[in-house]
């Protein structure tokens, strides 16, 4: 319900246009752009210290500066501000003192470029009117490009899908957001060369997909770019075009959010449990009625009906009892709502942020660590609006920081208190991937517990998992096992052999 509401929200017009342009600038780097886009691009390097109407950073907010100061002065200042300060220009000295005497570096720009930037500032950081027409022509250009890409993608379909799960090769949905265009072009051309050269991402993909090499493709840069445009558009051919001068360019998203494999699995399991409980309640009720009729009222003459219903009810109730008895003390498929609608699918999945960026104590502490709100602020000082939730959810972080009130996240993976579990031991020493115990969190909007976390499940892994025993100081003291390994008595050491299946390892 909630999710639908979020996707139907339209982005504000100008922001949408801006985002669109930005995507084009970074993805395609077409030289079709007019002066205005070029100015916006030039302004990117100013953004490190300045905003237009967004308040001061290191340097002043530049909104309205073109009205306050003459153009000549500004050009001179941007070119070499320190020379002006030294020469004692009163306005320059004033600005210098006001902003903590941090010099503005001199910029090697031409007069025309600076004039362009000033024009862009004058427009309050918006790309001026003629630019809109330009973008509309660009959309058309990209439309033909996407169509071309759709045709070319047929070749890829043998091994890849867009948003329908993995085949031989990975699902390509969102791949253009995760990886740079250059890298993708290189990879599509000749993936094996990259793997051999030891490119970490290429090697990772190669290993992840069972070491089946992707054949080299003899395509031109433009052809690959159009394929990427098609993938970037989630494999759909957009029907959107630009509308009148004031409104936005946006790509129509026809369908709702796509549930990932893991999410569908969790949902099915939860629904299965619910259905079983409903069936058990109904059958229990029937059982009582049937028993009453059989013993007291004798309403139905045909006795076999009673017996059939009795058997069916006992079967369902037995299954219900078994399922819920094994679930006692475990919380499989527990998927609580969190105080902030935070999506791991967006952060870990689409944005490809490493788990340990936020859960940074996983390799040095017993707890994986819930990130403090200050970690959120590493990005969310700038990213103030979510695509699905708007400002509502991100504002909760700002409120938490402002009031110095911790955010009350709900713990999903709970172990009973009589079990000792240490993340450091598993992540740092055991070198386990987070996925092995937590499931594919990068595919979940709301995190659920996928594994049972039962004792049998722990021991299954402890009995079979091989320890990296050699070249590891941590296990130096197991002298006998080392000797056995050397003499060839045993091939490798499992966790069980170093005491991983003893009761006291986890219960004390």
């Amino acid at each position, binding site marked *: 319900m909630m999710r639908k509401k979020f996707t139907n929200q339209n982005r504000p017009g100008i922001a949408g246009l801006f*985002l669109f342009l930005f*995507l084009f600038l*970074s993805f395609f780097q077409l030289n079709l752009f007019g002066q205005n886009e070029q100015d916006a691009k030039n302004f*990117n*390097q100013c*953004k*490190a210290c300045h905003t237009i109407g967004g308040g001061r*950073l*290191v340097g002043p907010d530049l909104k309205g500066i073109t009205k306050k100061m003459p153009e000549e002065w500004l050009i001179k200042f941007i070119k070499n501000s320190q020379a002006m300060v030294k020469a004692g220009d009163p306005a320059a000295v004033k600005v210098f003192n006001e902003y*903590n*005497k*941090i010099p503005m570096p001199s910029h090697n720009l031409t007069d025309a470029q600076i004039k362009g930037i000033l024009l862009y500032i004058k427009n309050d950081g918006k790309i001026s009117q003629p630019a809109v027409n330009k973008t509309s022509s660009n959309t058309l250009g990209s439309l033909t490009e996407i169509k071309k890409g759709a045709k070319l993608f047929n070749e890829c379909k043998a091994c890849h899908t867009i948003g329908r799960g993995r085949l031989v090769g990975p699902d390509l949905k969102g791949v253009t957001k*995760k990886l*740079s*265009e250059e*890298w993708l072009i290189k990879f599509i051309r000749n993936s094996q060369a990259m793997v051999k050269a030891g490119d*970490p*991402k290429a090697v990772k993909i190669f290993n992840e997909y069972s070491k089946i090499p992707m054949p080299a493709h003899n395509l031109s840069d433009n052809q690959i770019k159009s394929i990427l445009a098609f993938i970037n558009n989630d494999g759909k051919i957009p029907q959107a075009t630009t509308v009148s001068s004031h409104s936005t360019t946006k790509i129509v998203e026809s369908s709702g959010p796509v549930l990932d494999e893991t999410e569908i699995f969790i949902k099915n399991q*939860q629904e299965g449990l*619910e259905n079983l*409980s*409903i069936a058990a*309640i*109904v059958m229990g*009720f029937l059982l009582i*009625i049937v028993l009453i009729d059989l013993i007291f009222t004798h309403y139905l003459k045909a006795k076999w009906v009673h017996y059939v219903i009795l058997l069916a009810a006992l079967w369902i109730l037995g299954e219900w009892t078994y399922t819920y008895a094994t*679930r*006692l*003390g*475990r*919380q499989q*498929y*527990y*998927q*609580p*709502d969190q105080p902030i609608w935070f999506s791991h699918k967006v952060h870990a999945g689409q*944005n*490809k942020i*490493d788990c*340990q*960026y936020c859960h*940074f104590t996983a390799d*040095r502490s*017993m*707890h994986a660590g*819930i990130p*403090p709100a*200050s*970690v959120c602020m*590493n*990005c969310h*000082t*700038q*990213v103030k609006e979510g695509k699905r939730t708007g400002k509502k959810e991100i504002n909760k972080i700002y409120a938490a920081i402002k009031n110095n*009130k*911790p955010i009350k996240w709900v713990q999903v993976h709970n172990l*009973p*208190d*009589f079990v000792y579990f240490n993340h450091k031991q598993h992540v740092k020493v055991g070198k386990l991937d987070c996925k092995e115990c937590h499931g594919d969190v990068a595919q979940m909007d709301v995190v*659920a517990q996928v594994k049972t976390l039962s004792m049998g499940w722990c021991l299954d892994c402890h009995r079979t998992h091989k320890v990296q025993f050699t070249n590891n100081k941590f296990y130096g003291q197991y002298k006998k096992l080392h000797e056995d390994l050397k003499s060839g008595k045993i091939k490798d050491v499992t966790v069980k052999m170093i005491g991983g299946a003893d009761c006291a390892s986890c219960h004390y």
Partner: protein
Amino acid sequence: MMKSKLFILSVFISGLFFTSCVESRNNPGYAYMGHFDMYYTKFYKAYSPNPILPNGQTDQPAPAGSVSRGENYFPFAPKNIAEKVADQAKAGIELKNPVPVNALTLSEGKKEYQIFCMDCHGVAGKGDGHLYTAGLFPAKPRDLTSPYVQNMPDGSLFFIITEGSISGLMGPHGVQVTPENRWKIVNYLRELVK
């Protein structure tokens, strides 16, 4: 007739009553003798709320100025941009890199770089990380191979990782990365241009 109508009605109502208590995904489930059999003990855990300690947290921040075992004192706590600028220059002179450069520390530095830096600064440190190229983060991250960065002393780079950049676009990562790993990242940055 009246009797059977009443009967059907009672079946219907009790049916509604029973189906209303089907578990939702917000319910963690039950444990056998949960509160008696040490499933849920009463002591405060690291992340549990606490009525006694300040701010209602069990997990308290370390007192200001305290130093963990095996770590060096980090003498800077800039409060505004001007102090940050001064401290960054001072850190370049005062702080010395204690981590030797060898294959092991470099590989560890690379691993830390890939976790904490790569998303913005890119695989090769060119400032072309996927968060920027995909338009998710608005400002261009610094090219770490540029002379501006490479000419800084180790201490200043360490300071920037700890306290964030002067512009504030890069946040402080001192909480996330241990000091030793920060030095390893600095070593790895030098390796990027070699």
